[in-house]
């Protein structure tokens, strides 16, 4: 019935053209080029020379920093911040849906606000709070109440840097995924709950598992994808906090930082491209899991 399109109807290309042109130019081609470059030696000055899989072999067998620090760091960071931020977003969205509109709007705004300041502006605040001498807020506070006897170099110490990175990222992770979930919870028709109770649901927990989450699958999926992508993009935080790439003793070094280190500091572009391909594969794998869990099957 709706396939009434005549032969001359190509209007969809008119609607799609701008997106496709830009998408191909700035996303598809660079990704393709990154894959090609990853098989070459390229120092950004001479033409790339083909060296096969050497970059990958080197990355896996010889790059101790990558295997011992960067990869474990990235996985730890991703596994805590990704699911952690995601679950937190859902709980907050769900709790917010239980209060009246005006109050909800104000609270949602405040909870969302950290993710608005993402990146640059935030590093300023956190570096002052975690500053290494006694003028740092945290040090000052802990010294005053007597927990510490001398200030701790929070951001330069390998022991604390990662924990602080996780904390700061979680704090700023109530972003668009959180908003989508909030609108998802609010969108559920209350009659469904009513029907659920008639069918034998008898507590809040069952209500969440059997009704709330299944009824907002698209928003849950959107939130999950945003969480995965956001987590792997959060590389800037460690460098911004510690003020150095590489971070002190590679304590907060994530794949994105490793990539920048090789690409823009050492100019080993081929090697950096190989890291980026590995990063794409890792992100893809994580997103696949998210699709499995929340994707609509059609």
């Amino acid at each position, binding site marked *: 019935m709706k396939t009434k399109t005549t032969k001359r109807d190509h*209007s969809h290309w008119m609607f799609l053209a701008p997106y496709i042109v830009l998408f191909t130019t700035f996303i598809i081609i*660079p990704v393709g*080029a990154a894959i090609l470059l990853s098989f070459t030696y390229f120092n950004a000055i001479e033409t790339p020379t083909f060296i096969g899989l050497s970059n990958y072999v080197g990355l896996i067998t010889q790059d101790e920093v990558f295997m011992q620090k960067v990869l474990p760091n990235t996985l730890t960071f991703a596994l805590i911040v990704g699911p952690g931020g995601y679950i937190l977003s859902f709980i907050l969205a769900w709790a917010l849906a239980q209060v009246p509109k005006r109050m909800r709007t104000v609270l949602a705004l405040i909870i969302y606000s950290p993710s608005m*300041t993402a990146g640059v502006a935030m590093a300023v605040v956190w570096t002052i709070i975690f500053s290494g001498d006694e*003028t740092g807020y945290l040090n000052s506070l802990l010294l005053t109440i007597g927990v510490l006897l001398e200030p701790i170099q929070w951001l330069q110490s390998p022991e604390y840097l990662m924990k602080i990175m996780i904390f700061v990222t979680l704090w700023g992770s109530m972003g668009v995924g959180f908003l989508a979930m909030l*609108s998802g919870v609010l969108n559920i028709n209350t009659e469904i709950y009513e029907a*659920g109770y008639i069918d034998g649901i008898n507590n809040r927990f069952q209500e969440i598992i059997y009704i709330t989450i299944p009824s907002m699958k698209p928003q849950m999926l959107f939130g999950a994808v945003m969480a995965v992508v956001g987590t792997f993009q959060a590389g800037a935080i460690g460098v911004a906090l510690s003020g150095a790439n590489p971070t002190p003793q590679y304590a907060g070094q994530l794949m994105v930082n490793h*990539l920048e280190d090789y690409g823009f500091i050492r100019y080993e572009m081929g090697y950096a491209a190989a890291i980026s391909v590995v990063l794409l594969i890792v*992100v893809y794998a994580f*997103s696949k899991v998210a699709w499995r869990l929340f994707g609509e099957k059609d």
Partner: protein
Amino acid sequence: MSAFQGTKMNPSKFHKSQLKFLAFLIPLAIFMALPIVYIFFHAFKPIDELFAYPPRFFVDKPTFQNFVDLFTKTNDTGVPMSRFLFNSVVVTLIVVVLTVIISTMAGYALSKKNFKMKKAIFEINTLALMFVPAAVAIPRYLLIDELGLINTFLVHILPLLAMPIGLFLVKQFIDQIPDELLEAARLDGASDFQIFVRIIVPLVKPAIATIAILSFQLVWNSIESSSLYVNDEGLKTFSFYMSTLTSTVDGNNVAGQGLAAAASLIMFIPNLVIFIILQSQVMNTMAHSGIK
């Protein structure tokens, strides 16, 4: 409504059963807000308070000096600060408007039109959701160089316009609009373009508002284009300038601290304003939009 007491989702008025949620939400919100509140106070602190020991959270004698300094300061090559701010505002406006138009148009075609490549295009777009810009920074640089975009104003704009997440979101929304509605409009003689403007756009406002917020944050906070693709100081953006203030200035540089504090407030305010303007749209339920 009915006497049904099982759930109290989306309540219309306050009831004491909500206290347990507030007991959890309010302290958390206060905690989340602390650094933001801090940005506000910090920006208005005179120099002696910025370095007071023990450090103070609140400001005693607020001053606009930091802002005055920030705006009268020119950077090393003589470019005034206001120039960076102007660049940022223009770039951001253009990117947000164009991103919204481009994604909504593409979303409409992918959702309501039938053609061969439809599935494949959406599939590729979904894959691209996972694309981490930093991962392909190098080939992107080479490509932008090839296109002759280095050191142009366009380089701030073009690479940010295709937003896979925006297309994904808007397409999902348009999927929920019943085909019958469009059929009816077509029978009434509406052209494709009219259907798009009169029916699709008004019905997917929440998705549009979400993309607008997302793309605003992306471009306003972005320093990538200024640091990688632009050497001409006069073409750089405010967020980049802001990042140089925080990275080159160490903690003890007295003048730099005040500037950085004022600059972070200026970075933050537009985000807040945009969100407040658009939030009612974002949280708007589909029930209001007449789809359900």
